[in-house]
C-alpha cells in the first residue's frame, strides 16, 4: 500500500512538472500574470509529491519490505538501520529518486528565496526546472521504478554492496547530487535569460549565490569521495582518475570557472555569452557524468549500477537538454553585446586566464575519460589512459593556475599599472622565491624536483593573499587598527572578498598536501608474524596478531597493532578484513592514526600460511589531511561569500514590480 502511494506520488509529480514546464513560461512570454504566479505553488507542490515518494521508499527499507524489488535487491534484515536508510540511494533507482528530490528542493528554494526577483525571471527559471524534472521523472517511471513489486516475496534481501556500508559513503552521494543538481539552478537561470534575451549584470548577480552554493556542495561531495576511497579501498590513495571520479570532477572544474566568470559578468558586464555557455556546460557535464556512470559505456570500479537501456534514455535526455540549450544559445547569444572593454593588465584578463586553464583541464579530463571510446571509434588502436597520463596533465596545468591565482585578485578591474602590482606583490614574490631556494636544498626536497615547486607555489598563494588583504585594509585606512578594521569589513560587504581569500588559501593548503604526500609518503609491504615489530618513518609497529570478530552482517578478521614513537606507545590500531554474509568481495577496513602533519595507516592484506602470519601494508602519509582540509577551506570560502549581505541588498534593490510587467511584454 505505502509503495503504491509512493508510486502514485511520483506520477502526480510528473503531472505537476508538466504543468510547471508549460504555464509559467507561456505566461512569461504572453504577459499572463496569473500563469506566471502559478510557478511558485507548483514548485512547492513538486517538492511535496517527491518528498512523499521518498518517504515511502525510506519506509519500505526500514520495514524491510522485500515485496518491493528494489528493497530486496539493496537491503537485508541484518543491515543496521543507518545503512538501511543510506541503502535507499545505494542503487540506481533510489539514487535517481534522491536526485529528483534534491532537484525539487532546489526548485522550492528558488521559489521561496526569490521574492525580490522579477516575476518573469522566476516563472521562466521554475519552468526550465520543470522541464528537467519531467525528464528525470519519466526516466524513473519508464525504466527505473523504485516501487516495482516482486512476487513471490523473498524471505531475505540481497544486501547492499559492502563497499557502500560505510558512513563516508552514506553521505557522499547526497552531497555530490546536491552539487550536480544545484548546477541545474544556474542552468535554469541561464536558459531563462536566453529565452528572455536579457543577459545582464542583474542576471549574473541572481545566479551567483545559487551557483556558489551548488559548487560548495560539489566540493564537499568530491572531498568526501576522496576521503572514503583513502580509508576504504585500503591502498591509501586519495584520487584514482577513475571515470566516476572524473565525472564529478568535470562539473566541478567548469563550475569553478563559472563562479569566476559570473564575477566578471556581474561587475563589468563582460564575458556574458561565455558565462552563459559555462552555466550550460556545468549542468551538461553533470548529466554526462550521470550518463557515464549509469550506462556502462565505460567500466569502472565505482559503477554499481549499469544498464545500456537506461543509458539510451539518459543519452536521449542529454541530447534534448544540452542540444536544446546549445541551440538556444546559438540563436540568442549573437545578439548579446560583448560588454565592457578591458586592457591587458586587468582583473578581467586574469579571470580569463583562470577560465581558459579550467576549461582546458576539463577538456583534457573529458578526453582522457572518453579516450578508450574515441580510439575505438576511429580505429586508432587500443588505448587505456591511465593514472600517469592524468597526473602529467594535472602537473602541466596546475602550476600556471597557481601563479595566476596569486596575481589575479591583486589586479584592478579594467586597467591597472604593472608598477602598482609590483609594489604590492614584490615581497610576496621574494618570499616565495626564498621558499623555492630553501626547499630546493637536498636536505628538504630529498631530491624530488616537485617539492620546491609545490611549496613555493603554496607560499606564493599565501603571501600574495596576505599582500592583497593588506592592500584592501590600507585602502580602507585600517592598517593601524588591523583587528577592528577586519571585523568591520567582515560585518559589511567584505565577506565575499574574504570568502575568496579563504578559498584561495584552501588551494595553497591543498597544494602543500598533494606535494608532501606524493613525494614523502613511505610505505612498507611486509609479512609479519604475531609478536613481530616493523619500523617505518621513526615509528615502530608491533603486530599482536589477528582474530575473528563477528559484526552485525559480516565476519571480520581484526588485526591488533601497537604503534610506538621511541619508547612511548602512541596508539593502538585495529585494521579489519571483512567478509559480508550477503556475499561479494571481502572488504578492507584500514586502521588510521590521523594527525594534522601525518597519518599512520595500516591495512591487512592476506593471511599467509597457517601460523597467524599476515601480509600487511604500513603507510606513513605526511600532510595527507591537508588535501581535504584544503577542500574544506574552499567550501568554507564559498559559504562566506554567499553570506555577503551584498546579495540580500542586491535583491532588495531589484524589487521593481513595475519593471516586471514591462519585461514581460518585451
Amino acid at each position, binding site marked *: 500500500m505505502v509503495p503504491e502511494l509512493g508510486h502514485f506520488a511520483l506520477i502526480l509529480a510528473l503531472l505537476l512538472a508538466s504543468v510547471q514546464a508549460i504555464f509559467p513560461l507561456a505566461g512569461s512570454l504572453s504577459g499572463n500574470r496569473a500563469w506566471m504566479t502559478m510557478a511558485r505553488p507548483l514548485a512547492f507542490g513538486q517538492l511535496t509529491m517527491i518528498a512523499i515518494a521518498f518517504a515511502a521508499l525510506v519506509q519500505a527499507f526500514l520495514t524491510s519490505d522485500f515485496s518491493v524489488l528494489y528493497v530486496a535487491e539493496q537491503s537485508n534484515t541484518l543491515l543496521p538501520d543507518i545503512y538501511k536508510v543510506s541503502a535507499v540511494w545505494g542503487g540506481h533507482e533510489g539514487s535517481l529518486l534522491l536526485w529528483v528530490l534534491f532537484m525539487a528542493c532546489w526548485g522550492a528554494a528558488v521559489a521561496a528565496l526569490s521574492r525580490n526577483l522579477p516575476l518573469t525571471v522566476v516563472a521562466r527559471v521554475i519552468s526550465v526546472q520543470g522541464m528537467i524534472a519531467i525528464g528525470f521523472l519519466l526516466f524513473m517511471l519508464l525504466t527505473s521504478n523504485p516501487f516495482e513489486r516482486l512476487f513471490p516475496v523473498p524471505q531475505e534481501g540481497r544486501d547492499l554492496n559492502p563497499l557502500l556500508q560505510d558512513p563516508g559513503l552514506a553521505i557522499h552521494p547526497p552531497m555530490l547530487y546536491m552539487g550536480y543538481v544545484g548546477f541545474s539552478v544556474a542552468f535554469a537561470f541561464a536558459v531563462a535569460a536566453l529565452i528572455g534575451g536579457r543577459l545582464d549584470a542583474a542576471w549574473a548577480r541572481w545566479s551567483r549565490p545559487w551557483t556558489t552554493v551548488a559548487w560548495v556542495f560539489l566540493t564537499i561531495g568530491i572531498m568526501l569521495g576522496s576521503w572514503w576511497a583513502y580509508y576504504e*579501498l585500503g*591502498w591509501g*590513495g586519495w584520487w*584514482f582518475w*577513475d571515470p566516476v571520479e572524473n565525472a564529478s570532477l568535470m562539473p566541478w572544474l567548469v563550475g569553478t570557472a563559472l563562479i569566476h566568470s559570473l564575477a566578471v559578468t556581474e561587475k563589468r558586464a563582460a564575458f556574458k*555569452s561565455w558565462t552563459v*555557455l559555462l552555466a*550550460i*556546460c556545468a549542468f*551538461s557535464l553533470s548529466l554526462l557524468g550521470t*550518463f557515464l556512470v549509469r*550506462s*556502462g*559505456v*565505460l*567500466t*569502472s*570500479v565505482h559503477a554499481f549500477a*549499469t544498464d*545500456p537501456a537506461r*543509458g*539510451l534514455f539518459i*543519452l536521449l535526455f*542529454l*541530447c534534448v537538454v*544540452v*542540444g536544446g540549450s*546549445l*541551440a538556444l*544559445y*546559438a540563436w540568442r*547569444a*549573437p545578439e548579446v553585446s560583448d560588454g565592457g572593454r578591458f586592457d591587458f593588465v586587468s582583473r578581467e584578463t586574469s579571470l580569463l586566464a583562470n577560465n581558459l586553464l579550467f576549461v582546458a583541464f576539463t577538456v583534457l579530463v573529458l578526453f582522457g575519460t*572518453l579516450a*578508450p*571510446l*574515441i580510439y*575505438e*571509434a576511429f580505429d586508432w*588502436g*587500443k588505448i*587505456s589512459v*591511465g*593514472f*600517469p597520463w592524468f597526473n602529467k596533465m594535472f602537473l602541466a596545468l596546475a602550476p600556471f593556475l597557481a601563479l595566476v591565482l596569486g596575481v589575479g585578485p591583486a589586479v584592478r578591474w579594467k586597467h591597472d599599472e604593472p608598477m602598482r602590482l609590483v609594489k604590492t606583490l614584490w615581497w610576496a614574490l621574494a618570499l616565495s622565491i626564498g621558499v623555492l631556494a630553501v626547499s630546493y636544498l637536498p636536505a628538504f626536497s630529498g631530491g624530488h624536483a616537485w617539492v620546491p615547486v609545490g611549496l613555493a607555489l603554496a607560499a606564493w598563494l599565501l603571501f600574495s593573499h596576505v599582500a592583497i588583504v593588506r592592500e584592501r585594509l590600507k585602502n580602507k585606512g585600517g592598517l593601524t587598527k588591523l583587528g577592528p578594521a577586519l571585523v568591520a569589513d567582515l560585518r559589511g560587504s567584505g565577506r565575499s572578498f574574504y570568502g575568496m581569500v579563504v578559498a584561495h588559501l584552501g588551494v595553497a593548503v591543498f597544494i602543500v598536501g598533494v606535494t608532501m604526500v606524493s613525494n614523502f609518503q613511505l610505505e612498507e*609491504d611486509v609479512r609479519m608474524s604475531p609478536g613481530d615489530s616493523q619500523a617505518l618513518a621513526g615509528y615502530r609497529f608491533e603486530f599482536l596478531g589477528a582474530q575473528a570478530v563477528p559484526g552485525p552482517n559480516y565476519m571480520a578478521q581484526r588485526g591488533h597493532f601497537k604503534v610506538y614513537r621511541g619508547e612511548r606507545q602512541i596508539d593502538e590500531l585495529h585494521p579489519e578484513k571483512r567478509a559480508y554474509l550477503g*556475499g*561479494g*568481495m*571481502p572488504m578492507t577496513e584500514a586502521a588510521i592514526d590521523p594527525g594534522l602533519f601525518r597519518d599512520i595507516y595500516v591495512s591487512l*592484506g*592476506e593471511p*599467509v600460511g597457517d601460523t597467524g602470519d599476515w*601480509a600487511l*601494508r604500513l603507510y606513513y602519509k605526511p600532510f595527507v589531511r591537508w588535501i581535504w582540509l584544503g577542500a574544506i577551506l574552499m567550501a568554507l570560502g564559498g559559504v562566506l561569500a554567499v553570506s555577503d549581505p551584498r546579495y540580500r541588498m542586491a535583491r532588495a534593490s531589484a524589487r521593481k514590480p513595475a519593471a516586471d510587467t514591462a519585461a514581460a511584454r518585451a
Partner: protein
Amino acid sequence: MAMSKSVRYLIPLVIFGALAGLLVWGLGQDPREVPSPLIGKPVPAFSLPTLEDPNRTLSDADLKGKISLVNVWASWCSSCRAEHQSLMALSELRDFQIIGLNWKDEAAAARRVLSMTGNPYDLIGYDPDNTVGIDWGVYGAPETFVVDRQGIIRYKHIGPIDRTVWEETLSPLVERLRAEG
C-alpha cells in the same frame, strides 16, 4: 561579419553533436559484452620476458595443454586491485593456470604489488609497451581471456572478475572446457 559571428556561436552545438554521436556509438559497443574478434581463434604468437625473471620467457606455447585464464593487469589500475582478491581465491583451484599479462606497467611497481598482496599467477608476461596487448586486442585493464587446452581463445571478460562473474560465467565455461578434454 555578422554572419561569421553567428556561426561562432554554433560551435558548442557542433562539438556536442560530435560528442553525442560518439556516445550513441559507444552505447552500441557495450565494452562488457562486445565479443573479441579473436574468440574461436588461436592465441596470437608472442614471446615476452616474465616479470619475475627477465631471462625467462612466456610464449604462446605456455598456453597449450592446460586451460588458462589470461589476466591483463597493471599496478596503476584500481579495478585490478579490487579483482586481485578474487584471483587469489581462484589460484587455489588447481584445474587451470592463471597467466598474468602485466600491461603498460613498471616492473618494480608490479613486483611490489605482488609481494604485498600475494601472487595468484603461475606465470606473468611483462608487456610495458603494449606490444602483445595490441595483438590480443586489449582494451583496458583488467581483462581476462579464457584459453582452452588447444590454445584457442574461447572467451574474453572485460572488467574485474568478482564472485558473480566467476560463478555465473567463467566457472561454467571452465567446467565445459574441462569436459571437452
